[in-house]
């Protein structure tokens, strides 16, 4: 087995969209994904009255690649949206209870829109980074329920960041005939690969998601190698993210 590892630089900016409550722009090589988060009020679900919602949506438009047509979301966009929803659910990145304002009556709904501006492969990794960076950037105003009128009063002057509990980082691999594994594949490599694998890991080494949608088989030993690579990748990405946030904080 031979490895081929490419470390493509990942640049990111956060807070670039003024109208959104939280935003980020991530560039993984040529793949560019922008994430905007808008917070709105909604009624909590009846079976979980003390939880809010996080609704991700990945938009792959004809802008990013010749493969996509305009109209309802195609299969790749739906699969990516489902993947992001699973990552949010499994990794417990934010406690949904934190989004509840008044149990059973009012809760925050975070609409996360991930728009791909340039698709050069490895869309899942880029979307996960963008989502994480944007969530760290989200500032929610303080809301109090007025007892007399039973209306919500929003105090825009007092905003607080979300409590991000874990930092899930995705690492994707392209598999070629069970022998060659390429980390962070470009679109050409993905197209020629016989299989792909995405591992989402958080800082304690716990796996949130092992997404291998078919393709050529992998043995347990290969999988183990992928895990160790995912651990190193997590450290690199976390370092980059901490740098960006440190440079941004005094605002």
């Amino acid at each position, binding site marked *: 087995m031979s490895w081929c590892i490419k470390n493509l630089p990942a640049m990111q900016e956060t807070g670039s969209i003024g109208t959104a409550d939280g935003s980020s722009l991530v560039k993984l090589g040529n793949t560019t994904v922008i994430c905007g988060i808008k917070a709105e009020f909604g009624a909590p679900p009846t079976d979980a009255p003390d939880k809010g919602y996080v609704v991700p949506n990945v938009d792959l438009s004809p802008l990013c690649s010749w493969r996509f047509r305009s109209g309802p979301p195609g299969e790749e966009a739906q699969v990516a949206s489902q993947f992001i929803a699973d990552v949010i659910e499994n990794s417990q990145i934010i406690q949904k209870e934190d989004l509840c304002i008044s149990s059973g009556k009012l809760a925050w709904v975070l609409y996360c829109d991930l728009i791909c501006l340039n698709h050069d492969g490895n869309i899942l990794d880029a979307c996960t980074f963008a989502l994480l960076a944007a969530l760290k950037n989200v500032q929610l105003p303080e809301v109090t329920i007025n007892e007399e009128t039973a209306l919500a009063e929003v105090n825009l002057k007092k905003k607080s960041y979300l409590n991000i509990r874990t930092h899930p980082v995705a690492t994707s691999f392209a598999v070629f005939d069970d022998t060659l594994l390429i980390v962070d594949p470009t679109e050409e490599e993905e197209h020629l690969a016989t299989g792909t694998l995405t591992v989402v890991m958080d800082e304690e080494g716990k796996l949130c998601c*092992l997404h291998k949608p078919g393709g050529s088989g992998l043995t347990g030993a290969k999988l183990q190698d992928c895990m160790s690579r995912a651990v190193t990748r997590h450290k690199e990405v976390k370092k980059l993210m901490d740098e960006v946030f440190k440079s941004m904080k005094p605002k």
Partner: protein
Amino acid sequence: MAFLDFRGGSGRVQIVSKRRATCGRHSWSPRVGACVQRTHLVRKRALLGGSNKPRLHVGSGAMEGAMQTESKIRADSRTEPGPRGPGCSLRHFACEQNLLSRPDGSASFLQGDTSVLAGVYGPAEVKISKEIFNKATLEVILRPKTGLPGVAEKSRERLIRNTCEAVVLGALHPRTSITVVLQVVSDAGSLLACCLNAACMALVDAGVPMRALFCGVTCALDSDGTLMLDPTAKQEKPQRAEHCWEALRDDHHRGCPSGVEYCALEAPVGATWWDHEARAVLTFALDSVERKLLMSTTKGLYSDAELQQCLAAAQTASTHVFRFYRESLQRRYSKS
């Protein structure tokens, strides 16, 4: 005529079925807990000149169970009745092939109470926009039991499609389409694994050339790291930490003036606090040649070591599923 011979004492149920000119019948075997459907396609068999044995094969998933190869089809029940004990064992599974007349191949796969019906059309004509010049275009359609298919179904279709693409020899049928249609009949846990098994059996029934067979196995990990293979719907549900009964009781006792021994606070009726609910559910698809991992999808948090443990358990369980496939097909094609 067909009759059901029920011996209550040892808990074994024998289903002896003979040729019947009328249509199929359902029979319920309470011990096994699976609905066993017998369909007799007598007229078709007579035309083909094949044997008149029904194509139903019922398998026991128990690690220690041995398959019966007599002409009587028997549903093996466990040595002890009731829910299966802790440790690695699969639920009962059954498979029936060639039950639909329109698709080129069809199969119904039952795992415990989960049942999926699969139909395969192909190799057939393909739309120009979807055709691939050097191999077959594979399509998978998954219909849920109720409601319209949504994003979750699309995601599962992609997983099943990519798994099938890895094993089907598409290069033998370029510019054609192979469509696999899956209908969920009942969902009692491990649905994706059951869909994969049904798809594989249907592809075999249709005669689509494949380089290997594949099977789906689901593993659940509960909070103390215990592995459960082939979990039921209740075992797959994520753990609700906030409803911990012990915490409620301790809180009450702290404030209770009469002291612990006089406290009459009872557990609510119908509580499922003590059931092992999963912290993580992992579904794997393995191929039959080298038990390599073809597909994996997971829910929940788990560690690397637990992943390897689940994968090893799934590989062991898959040998039983593949043995069941082999015996089922041998039974079908043997001329005794």
